[in-house]
């Protein structure tokens, strides 16, 4: 055990960031050991938003447990639901209609854009820039409206069900997505103008929070954090699910390993998501949006694993089934948890301001880390 506040024997100061600190975007509690302004150690304390989602899922049926996963990584709610729907389909050997697969991938990519936009705005605000917040939320609002029309909710959609999607697309869906793409392409360069080229921003980002490719593998980081250090880790490329093997897109790899590389990976990923949506939106095939499944779903006895690429990295769902209508054991491998564990390595020897910048580029969503 260690003290939560005070000084160590060597005379280092121990301070707490969070759990109610605005810079942590949630109830993340970090205990910092400081020598002056130099960070010697960062220790995350988890448990403030633990809702025992994994245990809850054991008492819910295979249809019901999906809605809970929207509450894990709420910014990638669609993608979480997608992972759960995929694993149930894998266990039951259900053939998902093409139409549903197309809809799912479009929704996933819209979610990814919305998530990266929120990350961009929140990270810029951490660094002291307030204008980006409004610019990104203007675009994100359009995605939220599209989601609201089709799924009926803005954040916790619960749109994916085992066998397809819950309801048919809204008649205006394609038109609205297309107009969003046109608008978004026009405004994406503003992000670069406003922040990326800014000299203050660059000085705060470049060379800060460096993590090497080897350390990324050691800490199990995935998603943009791993790709910024040159590790190929996009599940959409490594193990494609639904129609990701049919669309063309680039896996963004940067080799810098610092905050600026992580920033650029996410900014470039947004235009790749647009590229994926453009390929699919006009070609949604006709047909059913949901495969016919039994009223009570029972996975056969055995173990199942499915991984997807959320906006933050690799989400894995592991189910042990005893053949009953509820899972015997369920485990989520959340991307945020592994990415957070690398924070200590990234910021040792840096100053507090750099620590905030490094934490901003990790894109932490606390309910995802602490399920």
């Amino acid at each position, binding site marked *: 055990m260690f003290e939560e506040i005070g000084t160590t024997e060597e005379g280092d100061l121990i301070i707490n960031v969070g759990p109610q600190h605005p810079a942590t975007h949630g109830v993340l509690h970090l205990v910092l050991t400081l020598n002056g302004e130099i960070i010697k150690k960062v220790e995350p304390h988890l448990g403030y938003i633990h809702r025992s989602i994994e245990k809850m899922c054991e008492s819910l049926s295979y249809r019901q447990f999906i809605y809970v996963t929207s509450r894990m990584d709420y910014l990638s709610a669609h993608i979480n639901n997608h992972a759960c729907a995929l694993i149930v389909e894998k266990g039951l050997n259900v053939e998902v209609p093409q139409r549903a697969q197309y809809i799912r991938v479009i929704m996933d990519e819209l979610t990814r854009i919305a998530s990266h936009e929120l990350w961009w705005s929140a990270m810029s605000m951490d660094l002291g820039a307030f204008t980006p917040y409004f610019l990104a939320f203007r675009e994100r609002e359009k995605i939220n409206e599209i989601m609201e029309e089709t799924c009926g909710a803005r954040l916790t959609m619960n749109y994916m069900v085992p066998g397809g999607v819950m309801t048919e697309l*809204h008649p205006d869906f394609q038109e609205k997505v297309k107009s969003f793409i046109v608008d978004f392409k026009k405004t994406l360069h503003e992000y670069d103008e406003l922040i990326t080229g*800014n*000299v203050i921003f660059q000085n705060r980002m470049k060379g800060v929070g460096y993590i090497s490719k080897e350390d990324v593998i050691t800490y199990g980081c995935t998603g943009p954090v791993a790709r910024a250090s040159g590790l190929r880790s996009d599940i959409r490329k490594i193990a494609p699910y639904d129609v990701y093997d049919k669309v063309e897109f680039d896996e963004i790899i940067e080799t810098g390993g610092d905050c600026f590389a992580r920033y650029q990976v996410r900014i470039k990923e947004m235009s790749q998501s647009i590229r994926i949506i453009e390929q699919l939106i006009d070609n949604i095939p006709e047909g059913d949006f949901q495969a016919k499944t039994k009223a009570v779903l029972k996975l056969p006895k055995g173990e199942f694993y499915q991984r997807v690429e959320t906006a933050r990295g690799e989400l894995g769902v592991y189910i042990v089934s005893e053949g009953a209508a509820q899972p015997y054991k369920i485990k989520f491998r959340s991307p945020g948890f592994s990415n957070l564990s690398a924070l200590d390595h990234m910021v040792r020897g840096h100053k507090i301001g750099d620590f905030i910048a490094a934490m901003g580029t990790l894109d932490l969503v606390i309910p995802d880390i602490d399920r």
Partner: protein
Amino acid sequence: MFLADYIKDVYGAVKSLLTGMKLTGYYFTHHKEIITEEYPNNRATLKLADRFKGEVWMPHDENNEHACTGCSSCEIACPNGSIKIVSMNVINAEGKKKKAIDQHIYRLDMCTMCGLCVEACPTDAIHMRNTFELSVFDRNHLIMRLNKPGSKIREGVE
């Protein structure tokens, strides 16, 4: 050499700052498209999407009839136990006992708006409504009875 680099750096820095300022200035002078909704003031015109999951609702027609048979599908589908069906036995025209709905109790305080009950309903009796101002002063008001008093099942719905 050093001086030239220094001046170049300063020039680049000032230019990058001005590029950002230019964009801010552009939006400051071009506010043609206001996207902010001034919520309490636009209550009269504000309408959410038709599919917005605000609360569960049972539509009744003009004869005070609904389509709920009391089969408990929604109660089984609900992950939080926010629906309870109280059924009763009625004697129909042929003198046989038949199960029918007495009360469809919906607890808004436990509902997460997942929409699984609407999915599960075989007779399309319940829907999600796009109302959103749902706060009340007493939490007992959040426990609602969805089928109206005196209502009965529509003819032909099995």
